[in-house]
């Protein structure tokens, strides 16, 4: 096989999207109370699920590249625009702390019956309209401090790719351990029964 197939056909993205939504739901990440409990350090599910997924996907893609069935350089890797991405990331963190969702989890929230997610989506449409209306004025920020095209941590530092896989794994393990300690001191994770009351 010669991956990526570069076929954005309906079936492939429908299936990947299905499992994306499914695994977010079964881990409880459609719940704004569970999502925001990450920021109060009571429930580390957001970090645990996200970093497990990053490690699994990053290691899998790297391995397939090493054995030669995946053209790693054909994958889409975002280029850094430092200030726009730092500002945007901070706005999404604030948006989640206030509103309880991010774009993907709002879809999961809505399709598990949460009507507050619909209002959040409405807010997003307003926010994106405001962004578009001010796009010309934001050009300076939008384009500031660009990095090299598609730069990875390995390219940034000159260190081997696998080393960062080990570091990310260590970060995930540390998050699980630290998380378990915080969770037991702060009333335990937010469970499904608590949310249904």
């Amino acid at each position, binding site marked *: 096989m010669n991956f990526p197939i570069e076929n954005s056909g309906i079936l492939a993205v429908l299936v990947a999207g299905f499992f994306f939504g499914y695994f977010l739901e079964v881990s409880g990440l459609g719940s704004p109370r569970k999502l925001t409990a990450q920021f109060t350090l009571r429930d580390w599910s957001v970090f645990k699920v996200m970093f497990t997924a990053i490690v699994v996907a990053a290691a899998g893609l790297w391995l397939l590249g090493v054995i030669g069935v995946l053209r790693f350089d054909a*994958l889409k890797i975002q280029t*850094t625009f430092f200030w726009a991405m730092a500002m945007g990331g901070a706005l999404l963190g604030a948006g989640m702390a206030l*509103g309880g969702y991010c774009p993907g989890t709002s879809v999961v929230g809505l399709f598990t019956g949460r009507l507050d997610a619909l209002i959040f989506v409405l807010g997003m449409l307003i*926010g994106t309209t*405001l962004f578009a209306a001010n796009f010309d004025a934001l050009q300076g920020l939008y384009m500031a401090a660009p990095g090299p095209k598609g730069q990875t941590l390995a390219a940034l530092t000159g260190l081997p790719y696998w080393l960062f896989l080990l570091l990310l794994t260590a970060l995930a393990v540390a998050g699980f351990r630290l998380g378990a300690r915080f969770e037991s001191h702060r009333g335990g994770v937010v469970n499904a029964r608590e949310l*249904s009351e």
Partner: protein
Amino acid sequence: MKDRQPQDFWPPLAAGIGLGLALMGMFLFTGHGLGANGFFTRVVVWLGEITIPAWTGANSYLNPYLTKGHPLNEWISWEIIGVAMGALVGSLTAQRFQFKIERGSRIGIKARLVLALGGGVLTGFGAPLARGCTSGLGLSGGATLAVAAFVFLIAFFAAGLLLSALTRRLWQ
């Protein structure tokens, strides 16, 4: 259904492995990762085209989306339909689907909805600024070790943690 207890959530490790495999599968088939915010941008373009076509056509951010046919005719629309179906199947098969306005016990419904709208506005502004969201940039970029993803994620968690000192009561 009402009196049946909801099943509890999966352990984060198991769900994270599943999510990682779904993300890897997306990369293998399409060459890019999972996303979410791009869909909402396209909804804005689509609604703008219907309601205020002159403004939308002249807008420098939205205009490029208009040149390639219907703004919703793109892979991300199908992916979001998949996300919705996955969330429905996951919640319905575990008795977790429930119509409600989720909020902390110390906040009223009206205040919760105002904050949901406000949080949505910040998110809708921030995601196109960052050129991606938690899944499109953070998760998918993270899987390719993109520097961009870690800039985004550090800012995301830092702002969430800081602001949470003010908002934590809302969710208790």
